[in-house]
């Protein structure tokens, strides 16, 4: 395994079974994936596509039916790897009878942080997620957005090298979403690796370096976001400073009389357009990789 690779899945398969051991659903089919150090990797897919199952398999919350998941080169079930991981679940599953300070202090104790470090980190994180005024209130009194914030704070309590974020912007208001995205980008600048899954395509487009699109448990697309969104059979010309007359002329003689040409490149579609296209094609041709772009 390369030193660059933080998460690696090899033919990772998960079949959910019922009480009697009968197959209920094949949630993940032979997923091969690599997440490299320092990148933000997005898992995309409609409901039931296997995103959350993948994250839970990587965390050791589920056991694979076949294949394996390695984190920092260790098996997913290894407890020691968790010392370098931060996890924000889909909904912030926290103890609602604790307040924000107690919550962070409790999780910090699980990392055996010294008392002084613990206190400082709890103070800093509460400030970072903007919960100073509510730090003594029990979480049962928190709004969904506040719960997300304290959930993120607990994921950062150990200053992790790898963050797994399950729907990080769910429940946040527009400002909160912007702050969350800025924070994710800031964390990447600090050298952290982030694996996130989200339904919000604009979020993924804004922050992710690479994405994987899953559908019905199968990997449909994998690659850099900018490469995936490039439309190859069209040319985009972007110009500025043109008068209306010039614009008319450009239309007529762009090939001969160019104004100041600012860009001449392939235009990009939105991630949403790409996502919808892939899912439709996948439904038309189940089991087939849609495009081979990496």
């Amino acid at each position, binding site marked *: 395994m390369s030193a660059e690779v933080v998460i690696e899945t090899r033919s990772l398969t998960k079949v959910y079974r019922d009480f009697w051991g009968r197959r209920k659903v094949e949630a993940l089919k032979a997923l091969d994936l690599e997440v490299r150090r320092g990148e933000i990797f997005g898992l995309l897919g409609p409901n039931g596509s296997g995103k959350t199952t993948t994250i839970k398999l990587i965390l050791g919350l589920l056991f694979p039916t076949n294949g394996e998941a390695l984190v920092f080169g260790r098996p997913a079930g290894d*407890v020691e790897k*968790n010392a370098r991981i931060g996890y924000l679940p889909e909904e912030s599953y926290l103890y609602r009878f604790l307040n924000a300070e107690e919550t962070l202090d409790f999780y910090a104790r699980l990392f055996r942080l010294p008392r002084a470090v613990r206190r400082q980190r709890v103070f800093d994180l509460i400030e970072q997620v903007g919960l100073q005024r509510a730090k003594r209130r029990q979480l049962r009194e928190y709004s969904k957005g506040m719960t997300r914030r304290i959930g993120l704070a607990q994921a950062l309590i150990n200053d992790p090298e790898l963050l797994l974020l399950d729907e990080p912007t769910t429940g946040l208001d527009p400002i909160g979403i912007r702050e969350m995205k800025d924070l994710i980008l800031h964390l990447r600048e600090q050298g952290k690796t982030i694996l996130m899954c989200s339904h919000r395509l604009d979020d993924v487009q804004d922050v992710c370096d690479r994405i994987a699109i899953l559908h019905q448990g199968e990997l449909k697309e994998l690659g850099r976001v900018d490469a995936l969104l490039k439309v190859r059979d069209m040319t985009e010309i972007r110009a500025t400073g043109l008068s209306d007359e010039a614009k008319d002329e450009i239309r007529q003689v762009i090939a001969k009389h160019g104004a100041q040409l600012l860009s001449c490149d392939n235009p990009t579609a939105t991630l949403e357009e790409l996502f919808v296209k892939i899912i439709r094609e996948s439904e038309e041709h189940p089991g087939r990789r849609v495009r081979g772009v990496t």
Partner: protein
Amino acid sequence: MVLESYHAVNFAEWIGPAAKVWLIAVVALLIAFCLLRWLLAVLRQGPAAGTLSTMEFLLAAAADLVLLSPRRTLALAGLTIKESIRRRIVIVFAVFLILVAFAGWFLDPGSNQPARLYLSFVLTTTSYLVLLLAVFLSALSLPADIRNHTIHTVVTKPVRPSEIVLGRVFGFTAVGTVLLGLMAAISYVFVLRGLDHQHDFSAAAREQLAVLWREARRGDPTSGIAVSTDRVQNHRHTVYFDPSQETVDEQGVRRGAIRTDMENGHDHEIRYVVPVDGEPEFSCGPPENHLLARVPIYGKLRFKDRAGKDAEKGVNVGDEWTYRSYIQGGSLAAAIWTFENLREEQFPDGLPVEMTLGVFRTHKGDIEKGVPGSLSVRNPATGDEAHVRTFASREFQTDLQVIPLEFQTGDGRTINVFRDLVADGKLEIWLRCVAPHQYFGAGQADLYLRARDASFAVNFVKGFAGIWLQMVLITGFGVLFSTFLSGPIAILATGGALLGGLFSDFLYQLSQHKVYGGGPIEAMIRLVTQQNVVTELPPTAQTTVAKMLDKAAEQWMWLIWHMLPDFRVLSFSDHVAYGFDISWGLLALAICQTLAYVGPAFVLAYVFLKSRELAQ
């Protein structure tokens, strides 16, 4: 108090063989588990991968069980404590306070044995409340965490499953300990205050006591003249004036103390002060000798029948409860206790024989008077026997008879108990019923030598330690079941373990087909068809099927009986209520039994949690 077989166990002799049996059972279970795990892995993954995964699992398990982090475990215990407190366990404490506050309305301090009543009440109430709390807290916590997914944010930290289990057990134990401590303190005060009372004397009685004092000063005999106190809590005491304790200080003030007789399980000290040239003033002290921790020396009981021949048991007088056997009055029948390892230095003031006898009257006789009986002491080696005294029984009341170290027999012989009657530390005490056609009932613990008294306060704490051990055991079971069952099912399983442990003797009798009415199916048929428990069921196919099912159920009950702890070993309520010392050996036995179950329960809980997909 009923003497169970484990009450007489010598801890030092018991621990070796018991530990051996425990080790064999644990090792056998461990080997069985490893084989099962390996077989399942081989079936799923093939021989090589299955063997490898089993080895990895066992190595990881060993690491998880050995490399526990105390700090993480304490953090998890702290969370458990907060969870318990914020889930309103204070309600249980409030229920206890309400029960205690209103108990005074229902507990009669004027009953025959008020101390026993009060102590039984506080110990039983505390026991039920704390055990119920332990069942609910321990069985619900982990399933709630799994259902709410809060466990996801814990297991994705560097936390071992063993730490989660141990943190839970420690947390609930800490909560229960504090709660139990508070309940014990309140109970102690409640018992002391509930039983506290003082008597006074009427003016005539005071005058009579003053006269007796003056007569005693003149040297006239005062013995035999009784003076009664007033009636408080449905009883009064009788005082016989005795000036032997009187002292005179430098100013010439005389002070003395006399004791009342025993009534309702206690007596009082009556103090008096006589100023120079004044009249004596009498005042009554608080009740004494009602909160005891007697240290009994038990003997082995055997019987002689009416013809004087050895008998395994006495006569069955039809009492369903066969703890006591009966000896016929006016015959050669006797109940004989053989005591061993007696040393003279243990009994400087004579042999205090304390007994609580059952009496079965075939005719009413003089109902106001007790049935006469006799006590003899016999040398088991030579057969020399000396009649000590004849007494009137006080049915089901504890009676103390002190056998002097030296006494004269009816035929004028002077007997020294240890010189003439004790052989190699062995001594027999023979009890006979003198009245013809009346019967004395005796059980193993009904007669003992009261060597000394231990501290009641310490004994009270030991009694609560027994409840604490039961709570720890139930917590262990609750956490174990909660690792693989849903909340309600875990409560049922934990409650079932508690009930099974409390009625372990009944479970054994049921498994051995010794209970009237048959097994569960047969008993159900009898209930529905309203048939009594002794008539044979009609020989139909239905009966045959029911008996076959019962046979299978009995095998299961036998197995469950072997697996469940006997909660009676951990319950010292009777000791405290009946005023018997809980020996350190008995306490150590109870601690060992608790650890013997909690240890494997912890390992099993770990295995279940480790093997479980927490996100499914």
